[in-house]
């Protein structure tokens, strides 16, 4: 295997994503033990992924958890806004859902009240992005963790 072939075939990314067959993976390992450029590329990619995991885990440890039971039809959230806007567009990205929930809500003074359908909030981390509806400028983003419980506590 030569260096250019490893680059052309995106072998660093495919190795990290565990997409290579066993023989191809061994061939690439043999190559990056000899090729200092590919060695640095693999080292950088592994370093990125290791730190990515560490950052994600820290985020998960730090975010507030919201418990939803089987009787919850809606989740009511009141958010203290850090900046002013009359109409706020809210995008809620849940880990298990491909499309975000998008709703517009009027701000009441410096706070915002959201009334969200519970059945559209799967368990796991969610990111709430708040934008000024008129300018589409991102105001802030919050993260929270949805925890599904089998019976109310």
């Amino acid at each position: 295997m030569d260096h250019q072939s490893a680059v052309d075939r995106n072998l660093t990314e495919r190795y990290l994503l565990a997409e290579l067959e066993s023989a191809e993976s061994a061939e690439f390992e043999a190559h990056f033990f000899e090729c200092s450029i590919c060695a640095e590329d693999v080292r950088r990619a592994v370093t990125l992924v290791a730190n990515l995991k560490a950052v994600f885990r820290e985020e998960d440890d730090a975010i507030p958890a919201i418990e939803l039971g089987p009787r919850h039809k809606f989740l009511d959230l009141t958010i203290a806004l850090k900046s002013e806007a009359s109409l706020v567009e809210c995008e809620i990205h849940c880990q298990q859902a491909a499309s975000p929930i998008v709703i517009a809500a009027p701000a009441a003074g410096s706070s915002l009240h959201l009334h969200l359908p519970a059945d559209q909030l799967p368990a796991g981390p969610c990111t709430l992005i708040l934008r000024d509806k008129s300018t589409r400028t991102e105001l802030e983003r919050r993260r929270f963790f949805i925890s599904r419980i089998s019976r109310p506590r």
Partner: protein
Amino acid sequence: MELREFTSEYVQRLASGDAEIERHFTAYFSDLLLIKLRRGLRSSQSVEDVRQETFLRVFYVLKNGQGLASPEKLGAFVYGVCNNVLSEHYRAASRHAQLPEGGLDPQGSGPDPEAEFVNEERKRSVRRILERLPPKDRQILRLIFIEDRDKDEVCRIFRVDRNYLRVLLHRAKNRFRKILPTTRAASRGAA
């Protein structure tokens, strides 16, 4: 990590116990051995055992006059020795224990070997990269690397193809390189 060519002089200095070259050699190959071994071994202790045994054997061969015919093949030599040690490790594990469910090397309770790659400066760089990513891309990375979800399933959820995952990782890696030009092994005091 300082790049050095593996020349006759490098191999001779390594064989003669030159401290600076030994530091460079172990720092350079420690990462590569870890990257290779963590794919086949799940216990941190096994990774460390095989890595140390590989270094011991390489040093033994070099210091006992069985030098390399081609110094530029030093990397291939280390890789070959590692494969031999790894095969012996698997054979020994299969002799001494019944094959446990999930493989020959059960998850150990030791520290995560990947922790060697993590430090505060790198985490700050990663946070900067994540801040610029669209939420969808953050979610994809999270599902793949934290949840360990099947990649085809992730592609289905987000209506992307496998090439999208490679490009996402490739771009993140390039941004990481711009923010942090070297992935020096600072914690081990590498050359």
